[in-house]
């Protein structure tokens, strides 16, 4: 019952922003799809195949900062309201373990982002597969996967930084965060991130537990 109530509170906080993000992602995907179909009419499918396959062009690269921004936006909408007027103190006083509260809140955000990314990128790649062979779809997927994981990373980083009560520590966390985010964004040919993926997943696990440090600081009343 309590879990449900908490999740409902998160939903009330974020629903408009989530809707807006869905709209932005849909528009962006639509734009890329339009560019492909316009190019197909103007230069022909064979030329597009050549550009995608032999020249390693991945058009989704043009919107590579979108998941990153979505993560930040999601983190801000969820956690800034908690920090103003010390509302988070009330949240932590709920008859639930603090770990459970944190897990529920972060879990909510991650699920929302996962849905957003799966629907938008999944839909786009599914559409792509009707005109291009599976090798191209796989190459595009392997190119956007680190960018999508980056969205989760920026979300967890944002939560971590906002929840941290000590200002200096916030700055340090932001430095670490900046370095980490750049690791998700190294420019490379499609498929160059295959061996990096386990490392990126590991980073996400770490980022999911770091907010516990901030909550500890928070409870100790550090400023």
């Amino acid at each position: 019952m309590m879990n449900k109530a908490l999740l409902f509170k998160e939903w009330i906080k974020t629903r408009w922003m989530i809707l807006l993000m869905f709209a932005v992602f849909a528009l962006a995907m639509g734009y890329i799809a339009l560019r492909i179909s316009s190019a197909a009419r103007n230069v022909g499918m064979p030329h597009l195949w050549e550009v995608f396959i032999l020249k390693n062009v991945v058009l989704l690269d043009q919107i590579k900062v979108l998941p990153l921004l979505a993560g930040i936006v999601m983190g801000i909408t969820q956690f800034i309201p908690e920090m103003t007027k010390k509302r988070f103190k009330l949240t932590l006083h709920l008859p639930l373990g603090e770990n459970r509260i944190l897990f529920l809140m972060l879990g909510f955000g991650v699920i929302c982002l996962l849905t957003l990314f799966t629907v938008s990128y999944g839909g786009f790649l599914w559409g792509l597969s009707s005109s291009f062979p599976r090798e191209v779809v796989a190459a595009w997927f392997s190119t956007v996967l680190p960018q999508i994981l980056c969205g989760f990373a920026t979300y967890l980083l944002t939560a971590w930084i906002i929840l941290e009560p000590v200002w200096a520590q916030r700055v340090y966390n932001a430095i670490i965060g900046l370095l980490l985010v750049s690791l998700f964004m190294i420019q490379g040919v499609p498929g160059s991130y295959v061996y990096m993926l386990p490392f990126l997943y590991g980073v996400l696990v770490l980022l999911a537990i770091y907010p516990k440090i901030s909550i500890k600081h928070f409870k100790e009343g550090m400023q």
Partner: protein
Amino acid sequence: MKIKILYIGLSIFLLSWIIPSLVQLTLDSSSRYPFTYYSSVINQFCYIDVENDNVQGKDMSGKEYTDAEFDRVLPMFYYRQLAMENALPDSIQGVPVDLHSIARNNFFFWYKPKDKNTPVIELYPMFESCSGKVDLENPSDMFRLKDKIEFIDMATNQVDEQKSARFQQALQRAGFTAPAQWVAGIPTSQKAYDEGYFVLDSQGRLLHVKMTNGKPFVKDTKAGETINVSCMFPMDIENKSLYGFLFDTNHTLYYLSTDGYGLVKVLENVDPDKDRVSIMANMFFWTVVKESADGEYTYALKNENMQQVDSLFRPARQSQWDKTLPYLFPFTVNFQDSTNSYVYPRISGYYFPSFGINIILTLLTFVLYRKEKSYGKYLASIITLFTGFAGFITVCILARLKK
């Protein structure tokens, strides 16, 4: 505390990447080896010396040449300049030459490890290699070849079953055993002529696959019977004397001759995952250069039998960065390097000379932690001692250890 240790670990890891790479940007200077070419006129290596800021052609005896003289010592390289000046010799090494015969037999091959170790999208256009036209035409389909060959029409994204079956049958007749390990070719119509693709099957057989008059042509080159082929780099060269260069798993470089798929050994001890190779060939000699970590090896090989006639070694010069690195950092982390296109963490070996700086940093850590009474002081010092700057910044600024 446990989580804090994880935070410290990640922080040290990231700083061991960013700090050294920033320092490297300020200190790094790549040393280039001088351009070297084997002269067919004086039968020795000649090179361009850029030592004292003035570019000077020299030979191995130290003799200096003016620009015009240098062109005449290396007529096989500067033949176009000589032809323009009407100064091309009538014969070299007793063989009559002219602009066309030189141009026809000259070719270059540049190899770097990234050419081999890079992910590719495994779809290839199959050209008509006997079109009877000057320019190659782009086909309307591309093929994949792993378990079987499949041609996919680009306009419809549908598999052309009939064409695929014809090629599949031809492959099987030639002894192809699935799956293919790789397909190598020149997938562009911007080439002089087409020789299709070379395919390494699961049994190590190297097959030659091309399309002539719309029909499949598949032949076992038999190269796989004498060597374990590792990778191949097809070429299109004007005299059509070879199909391309290949490495075997024992680090030997060969070329595959167009004369009955003969395998000719070019150079031993070349590691395709680490060394760069360049070949500048003319009708008399090949200047073959292998660039390894320890230096640059240059060989002159006779064109007709690949017999080595001369060799030269230039040791690698250490840059300022290479010299100072071991004293500054106990280890470094990198995510990219020049030998492949993959992104992943690479941790260097441990540099013990860095302990000089590490001990100073450790004392500093002690000073900064002097008011701390817990064991955190000792833990912080140990971390700094073994991880240098990255650890020092982490435990003293980013994540102070407290009780």
